[in-house]
């Protein structure tokens, strides 16, 4: 126990000008005071779920910075519910610092008055409600971050005072097993525990012996078994049945027009159907081009079920993941050479590490977006929704601090710098892959991003641009690939973008002669320029055309969530 002493007072004989001895231990003593208040509720570190509200009231103080673990997939949903149900007369003014706002409770705390300030990364499903609460003055947003930025600030000026996390299981000492969906837990707990904060974990079960220890008990103050297992969203499962022939065509263009010439081996994919199509034609189309062993060997990627055929075909050597994916547990366990797994055999993911890997260790990011403007800036922001960023801006940005070379990185750098008097360096490939029109005839290319209007209406410092045009190296549509690395002027860049923008107003506004000129120079590549016969672009190329095919490809190891089945 900490020595309980009264605040130091200056001895009466000391000169009045001498500085008072500073107390260097206020955080630790504050922590002890909180623990003392909570002590009656705990047996060791174990608290009953029925006492969860009492525990939070004992621990929390007005204005605390609180991290409520809301991940991309795993949610501390029980603690979220308890927090949202607290009496704002007793707990209020909390400053929430969490990566994802996924559950209604994540915003209920603001509506009830328990919390008032917010720093976050992504709010996908709650984006519209968040916008309403912000405009109604119930939430003051500090900043909208990328994952890496928010995690970084946990160690600088946004360190949580109290963290409410979730794990698969705990033992009686408070050791945690986070299981395959480790996600944000390590970074949250590390920042909190080593700054004398308090860590409370909800777990699906209390056990005598854990399969492995992901978070040591020393860093955890309280554990409780939640009434129901925490919710996990199968966010990365794409049913191959929904992939269109046009997406297959675009996937062929990505492989033949980008992956092959740049020898892309370290990469990250977005979560859309476009990139799932690439994963699914590796064993067929890429194999037929003789690219096995030459591309796509190392991935920073969640365990996409769509990657199974490529893994089985021997394309993939390693996959490190931000989080796991429901149904992939047994498959991952059976492929330890490929995935990061613990001594118990189950996966260990880590969002912060994988984000860093995606930013610094990958040579290519490819993903989709909702809007691209004439400068190549892209955004998923739409009016009336504050959706945030997640990880895409870090993955989809040239890592300017990078120093190690690779053939991919060097080739991109050469293309960007050819003919200019610049010091040699490489560049990351950042590819935006979009159909020119989304469903309901929404054009993917626009003169001005909705993000600008949103920034104005929501009073943001900057428009929420997901990927800056200056970082984008290629834009790939069903009409062609625009290689922006080779553009030398803003005018060329604009025409290169217009030249693959199809029949959107932006595309129709092209200067046809300029576009033909760019095509002659290889800045714009049409499918026929790549030697791709559009007629061969059919779903027949997909190594799996249904979820069931993925189960077959996995040898029965993949166990898809029931909503994806048709058997």
């Amino acid at each position: 126990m900490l020595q309980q002493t009264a605040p130091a007072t200056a001895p009466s004989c000391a000169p009045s000008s001498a500085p008072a001895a500073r107390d260097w231990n206020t955080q630790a003593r504050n922590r002890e005071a909180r623990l003392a208040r909570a002590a009656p509720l705990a047996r060791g570190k174990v608290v009953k779920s029925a006492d969860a509200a009492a525990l939070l009231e004992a621990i929390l103080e007005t204005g605390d910075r609180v991290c409520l673990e809301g991940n991309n997939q795993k949610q501390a949903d029980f603690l979220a519910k308890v927090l949202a149900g607290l009496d704002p007369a007793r707990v209020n003014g909390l400053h929430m610092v969490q990566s994802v706002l996924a559950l209604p409770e994540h915003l209920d705390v603001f509506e009830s008055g328990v919390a008032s300030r917010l720093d976050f990364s992504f709010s996908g499903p709650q984006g519209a409600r968040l916008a309403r609460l912000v405009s109604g003055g119930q939430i003051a947003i500090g900043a909208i971050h990328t994952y890496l930025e928010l995690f970084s600030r946990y160690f600088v000026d946004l360190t949580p005072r109290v963290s409410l996390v979730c794990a698969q299981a705990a033992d009686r000492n408070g050791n945690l097993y986070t299981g395959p969906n480790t996600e944000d837990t390590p970074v949250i707990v590390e920042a909190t525990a080593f700054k004398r904060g308090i860590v409370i974990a909800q777990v699906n079960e209390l056990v005598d012996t854990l399969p492995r220890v992901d978070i040591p008990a020393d860093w955890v103050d309280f554990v409780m078994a939640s009434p129901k297992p925490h919710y996990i969203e199968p966010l990365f499962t794409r049913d191959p049945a929904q992939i269109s022939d046009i997406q297959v065509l675009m996937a062929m263009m990505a492989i033949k027009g980008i992956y092959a010439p740049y020898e892309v081996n370290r990469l990250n994919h977005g979560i859309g159907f476009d990139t799932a199509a690439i994963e699914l034609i590796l064993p067929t189309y890429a194999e037929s081009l003789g690219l096995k062993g030459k591309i796509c060997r190392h991935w920073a990627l969640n365990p996409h079920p769509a990657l199974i055929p490529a893994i089985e075909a021997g394309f993939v050597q390693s996959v490190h993941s931000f989080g796991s994916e429901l149904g992939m547990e047994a498959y991952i366990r059976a492929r330890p050479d490929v995935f990061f797994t613990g001594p118990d055999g189950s996966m260990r993911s880590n969002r912060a590490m994988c984000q860093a890997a995606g930013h610094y260790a990958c040579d290519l990011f490819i993903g989709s977006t909702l809007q691209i403007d004439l400068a190549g800036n892209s955004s998923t922001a739409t009016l009336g929704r504050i959706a945030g960023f997640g990880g895409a801006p870090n993955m989809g940005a040239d890592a300017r601090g990078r120093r190690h070379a690779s053939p991919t990185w060097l080739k991109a750098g050469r293309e960007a710098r050819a003919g200019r008097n610049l010091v040699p360096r490489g560049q990351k490939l950042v590819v935006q892959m979009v159909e020119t029109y989304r469903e309901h005839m929404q054009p993917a290319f626009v003169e001005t991003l909705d993000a600008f209007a949103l920034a104005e209406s929501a009073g943001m410092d900057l428009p929420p641009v997901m990927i800056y045009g200056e970082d984008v190296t290629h834009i790939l549509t069903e009409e062609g690939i625009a290689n922006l690395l080779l553009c030398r002027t803003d005018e060329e860049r604009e025409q290169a973008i217009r030249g693959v923008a199809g029949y959107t107003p932006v595309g129709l506004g092209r200067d046809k002669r300029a576009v033909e000129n760019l095509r002659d120079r290889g800045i714009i590549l049409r499918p026929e320029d790549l030697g791709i016969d559009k007629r061969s672009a059919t779903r027949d190329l997909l190594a799996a055309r249904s979820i069931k095919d993925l189960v077959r490809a996995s040898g029965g190891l993949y166990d898809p969530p029931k909503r994806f089945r048709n058997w």
Partner: protein
Amino acid sequence: MERLTFTYAGGRPATRNAKATLAGVVGSGNLEVLVEPVAQDGAVTIEVTTAAVGFGRIWQAVMDDFFARHGLGDLRISINDVGATPAVVSLRLDQAIETYLGGGQ
């Protein structure tokens, strides 16, 4: 719903196979394209019925390119559309023409 018609003159008559051909399905985001031989001095007539109103300019551009691509004549092309994207429209048109020239359904 909106009805649009387009006419192109000076195409190369393509009546080797005088058998009508259908491609596609009238489903959401999709369309059906019916190609029929008609002797009309090399002209192509295209009639579009579409559920998506207000995209006449885009249809025009898609059809201009289609005609430029194939340069065929003496055809009647009829389309029932449920909001297909221009990429899908072009794909179906090409599939229909290919089947038409290739010898029937």
